[in-house]
């Protein structure tokens, strides 16, 4: 794994997003409620540039004909087929078998890309 500096933390305020490229690999950086998450810009469904999708909330499980809006700012919606991913975990909201593409981590963060923020610089860890 190699550390690649890709952004300044100041570019990613809460709710912010930045798309970066490391070699041939595109990565979406998201500040989700103060935590930085990074995902490969490839939807596990059909290869769409998922990180260009709209970030929003969604309707939460509810009773019939009731609407509960929740997960504000935590849902990434793929622009091709509308699949909803939880930005905090990368998991598809209703399909446990699908999640945004993650890479092995250095410090036990199994959910997103390994990230380090030091002295205002955001790094992603990628092979090579």
């Amino acid at each position: 794994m190699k550390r690649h500096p890709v952004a300044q933390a100041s570019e990613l305020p809460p709710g912010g997003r930045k798309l970066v490229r490391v070699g041939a690999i595109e990565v979406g950086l998201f500040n989700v409620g103060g935590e930085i998450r990074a995902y490969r810009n490839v939807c596990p469904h059909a290869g769409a540039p998922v990180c260009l999708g709209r970030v929003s909330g969604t309707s939460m499980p509810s009773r019939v004909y009731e609407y509960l809006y929740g997960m504000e700012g935590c849902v990434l919606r793929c622009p091709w087929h509308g699949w909803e991913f939880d930005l905090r975990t990368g998991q598809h909201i209703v399909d446990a078998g699908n999640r945004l593409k993650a890479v092995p981590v250095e410090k036990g963060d199994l959910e997103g890309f390994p990230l380090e923020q030091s002295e205002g610089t955001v790094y992603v860890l990628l092979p090579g």
Partner: protein
Amino acid sequence: MRLIDADVHNAFADIKAELRPFLPRLWQEFADRHGIAVPPAGYVSPVGVQREDARPPSGGLAGSDPGHLIKDHMERHGVDYAILTGSHILGASVHFDPDWGTALAAAYNMNLAGRWLDRSERFRGSIIISHSDPQAAALEIERCAADKRFVQVLMAAGSNRLFGQRFFHPIYEAASAHGLPVAIHPGTEGAGTADTPTPAGRPTRYFEWHNIVPINAMAHVNSLVCEGVFEKFPRLRFVAVECGIAWLPHLMWRMDKNYKGLRAQVPWLKRLPSEYIRQHVRLTTQPTEEPENPAHLLQIFEMIGSPEVLMFSSDYPHWDFDNPAAALPALPKEWKERIFWRNAAELYGLGPVTSGR
């Protein structure tokens, strides 16, 4: 092997003589002046609807003589129970006057209990309702449910609203409170208040109409799942009688695929749409699709993914009757038992036949 036939058409020998005694006085007067009829769909079968060979010796319509029906159909094919689905009555749901429809449905149910269900323990009845007045239909379900020989609610498949919509929920509430499945049966598409048989227009002839009947059932099953009817009424079972089989995997796949992207509009769905279908929806088999290669039908059954969905039906005494000994391809043992009797026995609460009566 036990055998339950989930679609047997009892008919009126004389509709007016049979229903008039059970109509309120006002409607008796109406019937005396104008007769009793339900709105016709208008499609004429070139081979007739009733089987020529099933006419009772007494004359009258095929299926109109209970004793002859037992002999000609049930004894001949070893049918333990016949789920009676009526004839010339489902259109009560699509009368322009919903009160006339409700009165007719109630009269039918009263006549059924006396003329058919009293005749043999092997007849089981459907509570016919008019779906165009769901509150009145719920009261009719309440009235009939005490008589355990009624094993389901049955309504016209033709409608001007999709059956998942909240307008119909009083029907499902009453039915599920009594553990009764709700069934639909084709024949009224395009009749009376019902919308056209297809959203793309009216078929020209009976042949064309009969081919496309399943489109209506697809729309209703889709609606029932999407509107959350099975979340709101978790005990409810829905039976699409005589609506075909092979479309079901297509619908399940399409719904499941869309659910992953469009789920936010139906947040009350907690599972894949296909899972609701497998648990809550039942299809009767007749008219069984007959692909050139029978193995293809078995593949369709596998795609449906549960042996609990299908129930054998013959549609006696109609022209497109399915003979239980010939209609289905060779099935694995579990599927055979389930389709020919176990699924219906579980759904309708039917034990082994204990009396020959």
